[in-house]
């Protein structure tokens, strides 16, 4: 299988996309858009962990997790721990995930993203307060859709169809 490693996945691409993800999170989101806002940084980190595990992994995830903690005014470590677990799950399922077309890949990512969010919830619960409702699980949907869009876009960019032909 010839993965498109050579065309994309240079440091420039990685840093550019992660910076873009951080920038997107700085927009003044509000209301429903905020509730559904995908976790751009998490999707970015997991995406590059899947495609470039030698370059992006635990350390990047941890640092960007600290950044996310600052963004939400949360306890340091809350997102960092969750992101690191997400990276582990992706590494664990990596060879399997790489075989799927974007839609099925996104479907497989959903439980991983959900797990990450549940860890955020758990750590926050232990460290600060019980959370106000289960609205915090909504961004998981946003993130899954974002994953589908990104993976699909890259497939189309590389001249493959959106679905695997049997």
């Amino acid at each position: 299988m010839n993965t498109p490693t050579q065309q994309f996945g240079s440091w420039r691409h990685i840093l550019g996309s992660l910076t873009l993800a951080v920038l997107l999170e700085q927009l003044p989101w509000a209301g429903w858009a905020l509730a559904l806002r995908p976790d751009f940084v998490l999707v970015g980190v997991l995406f590059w962990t899947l495609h470039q595990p030698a370059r992006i992994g635990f350390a990047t995830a941890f640092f960007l997790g600290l950044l996310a903690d600052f963004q939400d005014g949360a306890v340091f470590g809350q997102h960092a721990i969750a992101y690191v677990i997400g990276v582990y799950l992706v590494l664990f399922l990596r060879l399997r995930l790489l075989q799927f077309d974007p839609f099925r890949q996104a479907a497989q990512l959903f439980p991983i993203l959900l797990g990450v969010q549940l860890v955020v919830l758990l750590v926050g619960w232990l460290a600060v307060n019980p959370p106000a409702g289960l609205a915090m699980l909504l961004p998981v949907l946003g993130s899954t859709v974002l994953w589908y869009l990104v993976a699909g876009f890259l497939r189309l960019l590389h001249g493959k169809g959106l679905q695997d032909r049997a």
Partner: protein
Amino acid sequence: MATPGQLMFARGLGPTARLLIWLLIGLGFAVFDSRYHALDGLRSGFSLLLQPVREIMRAPSDVAAELGGFFTRHRLLQKERDTLLAERARLMVNVNAARELRRENAELRSLLQLQTRPGQQVVHAAQLYRGHDWFSQRITLDQGGRAGLRSGLPVVDAVGLVGQVGRVYPASSEVTLISSPEQLTPVLIERTGQRGLAAGSGQNLLELRYMPAQTDIRPGDRLLTSGIDRVYPAGIPVARVTRVSRSQSGPYLRVECMPLAGLDRSRAVLVLIAEPQVTTQ
């Protein structure tokens, strides 16, 4: 050709070991931050890093609002201007009356030898960023320690109390909203003067706690800050009672209130900087 990610022989630690190491580090961060507040330096570092970015990223929505305002109809603006002029005239009358009352109040206070109320100084601030509010509801303002803000100051908008300044960075600050869980606000019922304690419940609501079952309170009553805590000045509108119900189990009423201030709407707020209280005893 071997891709960089696939090693033929394992070198170094496996993913599970690395996961455990990072988990331990993360746990250390969480403990040091929540128990000992040892990581405030890192927080101000991040704030220095992200402050300019946030200001730039606010530009697109500002431009959109600007464009939207540009296409507002001329007649609409004229009508608004007329209403504002009328309102201004009405308010000027109130201001004159208030000036008279203040003078009278000062005289009465000196007669009664009460402590005078501290003067107020305000800092204008705009909402810069709003994070996910899963555990406590916060907004970030574009003013910070350089403008004289410090932790604990009250924040209001044109209608009522918004919240209290939490962490302060040089050029930005975090505000904990009054609707945030575990955020307590001492209030009094405007109609009867009875004091109580309003607690945030998350989900943009407040709850008036520990009201005995025979309390005279009904939907529509306004709650003001009571000023009893020396944090909030007295008399700032806080919330309106929306529902009163008797709980079957406890001796207290369940009182739900809706905050008056536009907690999720208002972009521009005021931070009240009270002069340090002089205790004369």
